[in-house]
């Protein structure tokens, strides 16, 4: 009976858990790591990016995103959309071709792989015969021409990849149909390019690596013309009128050939080396587009003088008298041009360039060709990300002020809307405004709108202006002087070079109610900033916090403190610093918390922690947490871990020793060198033979960095007796210590004059000595105390001050609840002792139920060093759910994780990409978008019928978006009811919109 009842409760709890928690990786923000291919569909207005890890990502209008991953772990080398269709073909490094489609399912499109194909040559043929080097998706929509390394062109029918063997264009057929002097003597080499005649789809141009180009008639299966270029071919472009062919070559030249007329041999009209005289690098791609009036646009990538500018990544745009060499900061992958008009055949409107680290879009119709700000694919890593901070549910007022401050920074961008408009974004409006703040190595903090699918840049704060650094902000090396040749213009914002690594931002805390922000950096600097809508000129007052507190025998070997500008600095509208604390020694700040109601900031380093009153601009408390035996903590940032230091030392010694012996060898004899080499080899062999060992030893107080402050926390709680609650400060260290201070704040009217005081109240030394990573006070109801000012803004229930509070100390190994004010252990959850994992990241989150709006629970979101996500209940500290999320080897991914207050999180999957995940069943942000074939198909061939019934109703372009949305919702409801009625497996493979 009893057992039965308990079982019932358990199953009920299981049901609640299902309503509360659900793990999803929802969307990837930022710029794909190592892009390797670019594709564009003018009809769908979608761009596709393939990466070296085999991912394929599609982007349309803002919010329209799709992602697919090839099963093969091979780089995507080419992406081609089939004209006027929703299919695209990818070519991978392993010579396999893959067909993808956007299939509508319950009103939402999904990217699906629907076929794969690898060319098979005749038996016994070398692999080069079928190694694909060029792909042409023929405008008929059902043919794919594949040029290979062996010089053959295979014709394949799509979809389905059926080889049309009889129509293949073999190298022999081509050599037989061109004069002997071009074809026979030497191999034509691989097929470099395949181009379709824009006016006659029966004709294709085959460009061979050695230079020869042949116009091939697909119907008569014979060569119509040949173009006798002699330079190594790089790319070919067939002008829109079909009259000319442009070819670019490896010597930096491009040629124009006339192909109209009946002469089987085309004549060279023009040959030019645009950056000539001296040897130039290859022009890897050439595009020429006509304009309605006047001269055409010419786009060339590369072709720079080899000796002087061979290292530049340039695309030259030439239009009439205007000639600009767009100078990118990373390697160019590919580019294309978007054209105006319903058929996308009008004026060139934008140049889209994919470089290795970002996507740059140039507005070609505005004077000066400004850059259009991208709504997605933003290079998060334009300076390396050093930390991140998420703030949920931003009040509208602060949101607007940040936006307007950001708008003032973006005046140099083009006013034109984003030119890519494909698909419809069907995702519901985000329920709240969320901010993601990223700290960067160059001392900037970037504010991102993280409410929805697009991580949109809002505002950039730079802290470098407060300090004197080596770089002078006025010297701009990129500004080209008048008459410079080539006419460079720097574009793109990816700039990984930091002038001073000390500027790096390590910790950020923003109070969303008051607009106060505090940021802390690598050289122990803590800035307190205030949001100001006007520009202001002010000096930033610096206060030094001596964290050593007279501890003797230490010598700081790390970097020096940053020098502060003495003179007033003009700060633009936005967050403006007004107070600065500099830790001494200037070690990296490891913990930072702001309490805007009390006007206090607390900060910690590896040496101790301090409390700063930013109203009176003085230090309230400085406490050293150093262990006298911990010498390593003092030596600076280089020696982070003992073993690394030791191994470094050893390897340096070894190098020195070998150098010494080498030097000796010069004066002495060869035998000694041999000896030294033998010794070195023996040492290396020994190192390799010695297995990886781990010492099993309890942590001792003598371990290194036990004093490092890991977490700081403000709480208004019962610290010393159970009848009066007082403000308190809590600090947790790497050595498992918790220090609690009772704070005395003067009454509000005397706040400016009377000092704030802090008295030590409690110390807890956890027996297991694991690093304390989180401290939390739970109120009488067992819920976490609200954030400062949250209650004052009526955004949180005021905490229960009647019942007894409890203290939750989260170490890397355990979650432990203590009573307050008398600290005694109440309960705990052991993690490491049970499964060997350790807490790396922890956050407090509120999980709403999917079933009812009014039910929710608080919980801890935990990321372990094994890459697993856990949810731990509060106040009972019981493990609720556990999901594998990040590979355990991905240390930087695990370290970068940041949780939101509503059960979502972000972590870096590459230096430039955040993966967004959700642990909450209710709060999920994921792309929902629909892409359909546009009804205007200029081609004579009709697109095939869409595969899914849901997209039969084609979008009428005259209808407005809301009506479409309604319609979709209607059809969706129908879908759902039918699903409910007959219970078929309509769900298979698809997603159902949650109502």
């Amino acid at each position, binding site marked *: 009976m009893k057992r039965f009842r308990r079982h019932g409760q358990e199953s009920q709890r299981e049901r609640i858990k299902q309503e509360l928690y659900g793990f999803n990786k929802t969307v990837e923000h930022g710029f794909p790591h190592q892009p390797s291919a670019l594709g564009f569909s003018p009809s769908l207005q979608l761009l596709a990016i393939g990466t070296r890890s085999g991912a394929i990502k599609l982007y349309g209008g803002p919010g329209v995103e799709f992602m697919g991953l090839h099963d093969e772990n091979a780089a995507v080398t080419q992406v081609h959309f089939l004209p006027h269709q929703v299919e695209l073909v990818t070519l991978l490094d392993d010579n396999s071709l893959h067909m993808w489609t956007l299939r509508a399912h319950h009103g939402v499109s999904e990217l699906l792989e629907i076929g794969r194909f690898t060319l098979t040559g005749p038996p016994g043929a070398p692999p080069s015969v079928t190694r694909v080097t060029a792909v042409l998706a023929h405008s008929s929509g059902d043919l794919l021409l594949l040029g290979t390394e062996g010089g053959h062109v295979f014709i394949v029918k799509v979809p389905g990849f059926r080889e049309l063997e009889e129509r293949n264009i073999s190298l022999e057929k081509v050599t037989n149909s061109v004069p002997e002097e071009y074809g026979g003597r030497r191999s034509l080499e691989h097929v470099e390019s395949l181009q379709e005649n824009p006016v006659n789809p029966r004709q294709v141009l085959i460009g061979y690596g050695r230079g020869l180009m042949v116009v091939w008639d697909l119907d008569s299966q014979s060569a119509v013309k040949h173009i006798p270029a002699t330079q190594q071919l790089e790319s070919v472009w067939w002008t829109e009128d079909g009259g000319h062919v442009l070819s670019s070559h490896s010597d930096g030249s491009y040629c124009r050939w006339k192909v109209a007329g009946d002469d089987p041999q085309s004549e060279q009209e023009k040959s030019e080396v645009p950056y000539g005289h001296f040897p130039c690098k290859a022009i890897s791609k050439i595009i020429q587009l006509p304009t309605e009036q006047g001269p055409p646009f010419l786009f060339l990538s590369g072709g720079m003088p080899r000796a002087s500018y061979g290292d530049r990544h340039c695309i030259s745009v030439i239009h009439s008298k205007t000639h600009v060499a767009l100078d990118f900061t990373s390697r160019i992958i590919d580019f294309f041009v978007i054209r105006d008009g319903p058929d996308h055949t009008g004026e060139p409107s934008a140049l889209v360039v994919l470089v290795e680290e970002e996507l740059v879009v140039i507005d070609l119709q505005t004077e000066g060709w400004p850059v259009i700000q991208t709504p997605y694919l933003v290079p998060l890593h334009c300076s390396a990300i050093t930390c991140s901070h998420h703030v949920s549910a931003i009040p509208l007022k602060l949101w607007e002020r940040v936006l307007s401050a950001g708008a003032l920074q973006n005046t140099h961008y083009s006013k034109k809307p984003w030119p890519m408009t494909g698909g419809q974004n069907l995702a519901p409006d985000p329920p709240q405004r969320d901010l993601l703040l990223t700290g960067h190595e160059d001392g900037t903090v970037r504010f991102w709108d993280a409410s929805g699918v697009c991580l949109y840049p809002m505002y950039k704060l730079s802290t470098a202006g407060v300090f004197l650094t080596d770089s002078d902000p006025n010297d701009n090396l990129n500004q080209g002087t008048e008459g410079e040749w080539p006419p460079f213009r720097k574009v793109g914002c990816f700039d990984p070079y930091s002038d001073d690594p000390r500027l790096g931002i390590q910790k950020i805390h923003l109070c969303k109610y008051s607009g106060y922000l505090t940021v802390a950096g690598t050289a122990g600097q803590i800035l307190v900033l205030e949001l100001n809508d006007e520009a202001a000129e002010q000096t930033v007052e610096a206060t030094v916090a001596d964290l050593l507190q007279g501890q003797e025998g230490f010598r700081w070997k790390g970097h020096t403190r940053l020098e502060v500008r003495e003179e007033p600095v003009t700060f633009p509208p936005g967050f403006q610093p007004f107070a600065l604390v500099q830790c001494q020694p200037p070690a990296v700040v490891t913990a930072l918390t702001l309490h805007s109601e009390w006007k206090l900031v607390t900060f910690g380093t590896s040496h101790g922690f301090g409390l700063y009153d930013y109203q009176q601009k003085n230090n309230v408390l400085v406490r050293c947490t150093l*262990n*006298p*035996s911990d010498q390593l903590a003092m030596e600076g940032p280089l020696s982070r871990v003992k073993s690394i230091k030791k191994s470094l030392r050893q390897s340096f010694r070894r190098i020195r020793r070998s150098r010494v012996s080498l030097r000796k060898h010069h004066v002495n004899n060869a035998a000694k060198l041999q000896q030294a080499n033998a010794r070195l080899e023996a040492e290396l062999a020994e190192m390799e033979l010695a*297995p*990886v*060992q*781990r*010492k*099993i*030893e*309890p*942590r001792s*107080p*003598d371990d290194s960095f*036990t004093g490092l402050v890991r977490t700081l926390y403000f709480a208004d709680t019962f610290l*010393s*007796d159970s009848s009066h609650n007082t403000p308190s400060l809590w600090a947790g260290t790497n*050595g498992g*210590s918790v220090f609690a201070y009772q704070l005395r704040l003067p009454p509000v009217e005397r706040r400016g004059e009377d000092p704030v005081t802090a*008295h*030590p*109240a*409690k*110390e*807890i*030394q*956890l*027996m*297991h000595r*694991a690093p304390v990573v989180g401290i939390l006070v739970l109120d009488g109801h067992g819920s976490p105390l609200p954030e400062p000012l949250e209650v004052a803004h009526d955004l949180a229930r005021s905490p229960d001050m009647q019942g007894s509070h409890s203290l939750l100390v989260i170490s890397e*190994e355990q979650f*432990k609840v203590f009573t307050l004010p*008398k*600290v*005694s*252990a109440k309960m*705990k959850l*052991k993690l*490491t*002792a*049970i*499964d*060997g*994992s*350790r807490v790396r990241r922890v956050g407090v989150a509120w999980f709403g139920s999917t079933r009812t709006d009014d039910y929710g629970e608080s919980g801890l979101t935990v990321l372990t*060093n*094994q890459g697993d996500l856990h949810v731990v209940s509060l106040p009972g500290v019981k493990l609720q759910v556990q999901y594998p999320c990040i590979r*355990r080897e991905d240390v930087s991914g695990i370290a970068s994780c940041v949780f939101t207050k509503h059960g979502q999180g972000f972590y870096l999957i590459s230096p430039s990409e955040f993966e967004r995940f959700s642990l909450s069943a209710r709060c999920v942000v994921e792309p929902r978008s629909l892409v359909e074939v546009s009804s205007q198909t200029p081609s004579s061939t009709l697109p095939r019928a869409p595969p899914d019934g849901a997209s039969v109703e084609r979008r009428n372009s005259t209808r407005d978006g809301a009506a479409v949305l309604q319609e979709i919702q209607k059809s969706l409801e129908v879908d759902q009811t039918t699903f409910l009625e007959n219970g078929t497996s309509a769900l298979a493979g698809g997603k159902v919109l949650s109502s």
Partner: protein
Amino acid sequence: MVQSTGVQRAKMSRHQRTPLKNTNNVVEVKSKFEAEYRRFALKKSGTGGFQEFYRLLQTVHRIPSVEVLLGYADIYGDLLPINNDDNFYKALSSANPLLRIIIQKRDVDEPVVFATNSLQRRKKGLAGLRPAQQKTKPGLMIGHPQDFRQISSIIDVDILPETHRRVRLHKHGTHKPLGFYIRDGVSVRVTPQGVEKVPGVFISRLVRGGLAESTGLLGVNDEILEVNGIDVDSKSLDQVTDMMVANSHNLIVTVKPANQRNNVVLRGSKVSVGGNSSSGSIGSTISHDLAPSPASQSVSHYSNSNSVAEGDSDEDGDIIIESDILPYLPDHCVSNGNGSHREFPLSSSLGQRPLPQSIFLPSSGSLSDSKASLNSLTTPTHNGSPTKTSSSQESMREDGNIITM
């Protein structure tokens, strides 16, 4: 060195006589004081406690006013002390059949050596005592039995396969390092499909003088199968390391010893253990042994039933300092019974005379703040008043600083 003594021990056990049952309940006693011998008989039941026996010996040897120390030779020939009821009864029970008592004058200048190997184990018996004393390098010191701590044990012999060994290491209170390293390796398992190679975790090194080495229960290349009851299968080396460190205060490792010759073999009621006797390792015992050696008496209340549950019991050893003024000068100590006292020797010693082994920590030169404050606590004359224990909250308000354990 460990292995050679192991072999020696194995030999010993083979020559060992089975203890005779004294049917008449009388123990034959041969006691020796300086050069004099006395022989007498003692009733096994009905003998009083240690004090009574002490007086009896004083009478028998006619040394009523001389302060003496009593020792006896156990079955292995080790000289062990008799100074309380417990070890007196143990001595009686271990009479084999003769109980050999050695009486020595209590002499401050020349401390008595009770030690393993202090008596030669050959047939010579008592004759070995003299050479042992004359040795220039005396054997290990053995303190009073109440100071004895269990540092290791083999547990769950009854439920484990014979090829496995579950070893419990007690780190608490000792300043010795656990002293071992682990590594990745390849383990060979026999499966129905045949022999299979699977990754495993092995002991790679024992630190000389460390706890692990001194117990003799763990050896290099022993495969680690479980840590505190949790299977380490499919766990990474770092994970296993973290688990072991997290459990280091009461570490229970189940190993498959590389040397399978010294396995515990269950045989009837008396356990004859090859190679794992108490000799050679201080206080190392086999909990399954029905007649525990004196060394284990102070901790003989350990049950050997469920190692995981026991592992859970010892943890709340956090040190909490609550103060209004300064946390560094605590002048008042309280034991609030939060944790388990036996696990933290400090709590039992507070308010008593400081016992060297439980308080003195030789690494005091590099003590952390908290340890320093602990050390200052153990000085009862710190503020001139004897330390009293109290667990009430009011006293905290009055006196300020409180340490709870």
